[in-house]
C-alpha cells in the first residue's frame, strides 16, 4: 500500500462516488483519509494467507421461498415521497442532458 493518498486520487474517488468536493474540502479530506489508510497498514504485519475472506458472520445458506406475489398496500405513500412524480413514474432530468 505504502504511498500516501494524493489530492488527485481523492478527487477521482469523489467523482466515482458521485460527490463534488470544493478545493477546501479536498484540502481537509486528503490528509484525513490518508491517516485512516495509513493506520490500516498495521494489518500488513499479519499473515492471512490461506484464510478465507468473511463476507458475513453467520454461516447462512441461500433460503428459497415460494415465488408468490404479495401486495403492498401503501403504494401512494411511496410515490408521494418521490421528488418528482408523473403518472406513477419517477421523473428525472434527461439522461444525457438537455439539448444544446
Amino acid at each position, binding site marked *: 500500500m505504502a504511498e500516501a493518498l494524493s489530492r488527485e486520487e481523492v478527487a477521482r474517488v469523489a467523482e466515482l462516488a458521485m460527490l463534488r468536493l470544493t478545493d477546501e474540502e479536498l484540502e481537509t479530506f486528503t490528509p*484525513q483519509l490518508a491517516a485512516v489508510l495509513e493506520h490500516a497498514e498495521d*494489518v500488513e504485519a499479519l499473515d492471512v494467507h490461506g484464510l478465507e475472506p468473511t463476507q458475513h458472520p453467520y454461516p*447462512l445458506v441461500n433460503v428459497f421461498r415460494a415465488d408468490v406475489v404479495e401486495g403492498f398496500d401503501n403504494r401512494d405513500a411511496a410515490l408521494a415521497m418521490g421528488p418528482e412524480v408523473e403518472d406513477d413514474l419517477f421523473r428525472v432530468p434527461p439522461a444525457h442532458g438537455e439539448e444544446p
Partner: protein
Amino acid sequence: MRTALEIANLVRSGELSATEAVEESLASIEAQEPQIHAFNTVVADRALDRARAVDQAVAAGSDPGPLAGVPIALKDNMCTSGIPTTCSSKILDGWKPPYDATIVEKLAGAGAVLVGKTNLDEFAMGSSTENSAFGPTRNPLNPSLVPGGSSGGSAAAVAANMVPLSFGSDTGGSIRQPAALCGTVGLKPTYGAVSRYGLVAFASSLDQIGPFTNTVADAAVAFETIGGHDPRDTTSIPQPVPNVTEALERGADGLRVGVIAEMMGGAIEGFEPEVLARTREAADALAAAGAEVEEVSLESTIYGLSAYYLIAPAEASSNLARYDGVRYGNRVAQGTSTADMMVATRTAGFGAEVKRRIMLGTYALSAGYYDAFYGKAQRVRTLIIDDFNAAYEKFDVLLSPTSPCVAFPFGAKADPLTMYLNDVCTIPSNLAGHPAISVPFRTGANDLPVGVQVLGPMLGEAAIFQAAAVLETAA
C-alpha cells in the same frame, strides 16, 4: 422513573394507565428536550392515542403484552410508517417511510408505545452524535459533554429518564459506547438475532438493532420482544430468540470469564486509567460471585479497527449509492442531466463524515486496491472470528472496557481517526457477529460513568445477561 418492567406490570394489573405512563414521559421530554436534544421527532398525539388503546385493552380484560404501556423511543434510522425517518441527514429530511420496520411491529404488538425518534450521527456514522445534520445531542449527566454515538439520542433519552426503553443500532459500537458514556445498559445482540427489515442500512454485514435501558432486566425483556426469525430479512437467523430472562438469577458460580488482555493496558493504547481500574474491579466482582476469571489474549483484536474502517465504509459506499434524488429524499436540481442532478443532490445532502466514509469505501473497493484493502480486511475478519472461537472454547464470556474513555467535551475528537479509536473495544464483536452488552460499573474521571463490556459467542446472549446481572448488583 419506573423501569420498563415496572410500568408494564402496573399497566397489565390495572394499577397504572398507559396514558399516565405516556403523559409522564411526554412531560419529561418537554421539560428536558431544550437542553438535551435527544429527539428529532416527538409524536405526542399518536402516542396518547396508542396509550388509550392499550388502556382499553386492559379494561376489556385482555393483556396488551410484556411491554404494555411502556413509552419507547427509536433511533431515527428505523422506518416508521408515516412518521419522518431522517437518519439525521439533510438528504432524508422530511421523508416518511411507507412501511414499518419489523421491530416497530413487534414492539407495538407487545404493547409498547412509541413517543418519538431519536437523534444520531448522520446515517449512524460517528461516536459522539456531533455529526447529526440537526445539531448534537447533549449528555444528560453534563450538557457540555457528548452522549457518545452514533445512537446518542437513544442513550440520552433513557439516561435522562425521558423514556425507560429506547432502541439504537450498533455497527461498530453505536449502542454500547453511548450506553457507557451516558451510564445506561446497552445491548448489541448477535448479528441476525434481531430483524434488520426497515433499519436504514449502513454496513449490512455489521448492523444490528438493540435496546438501551436503565436495568439489565429491562434489556432482557426488550431483547426477547424484538428478537426472532423474520422472513423479510434474509440474514435473520432461523432460530427462536434465546431466553435470557431466566439467566438473570443464575449468579456467576462456575461462569468462566476471560478478561481480554489487549484491552486492559496491553497492546491497545489510549485507555483512561480509571476505566481500566473499574474493569478490573468488575472482573473481581465476578470472581467474588464465584466466576473463574482469567486473562486471555486475543491478538487479532488489535487489528479490528483497521479491518472495520475498510469493511464498514466499503459497505456504506454501496448502501448509500441509493440516495440519488430519484425515488425519495431531497433532490437538488442542478445542471442538465440525470448525473448532474445526482451529484448535486448527494453533494448538498450528505455531511462531511458521510462523505469521508463513502470515499474511503469507494477507494477500498476500487480497481487496484480491492485485494490490498478490502480483501485483506475480510481475511482479518476471519482471523478475529477464529481467535474469538478459540477463546470461547475456554470461556463462557469475555470482559473488557466498553469505551477507552468516559464522556468527552464537544469538539474534543475533531480529527476523524481520533474519533474512530473510541470504537476499539466494541468493533471486534461486530466483525465476528457476536453479542455484547455494556453495563454501567461505577465511575471514572470527573465522576462520569464507566461502562464494562461483556462479550459472548454467537447466540450466547444468556451468558452475557447472566454476567451483566451480577455486575449490575455489584456496581
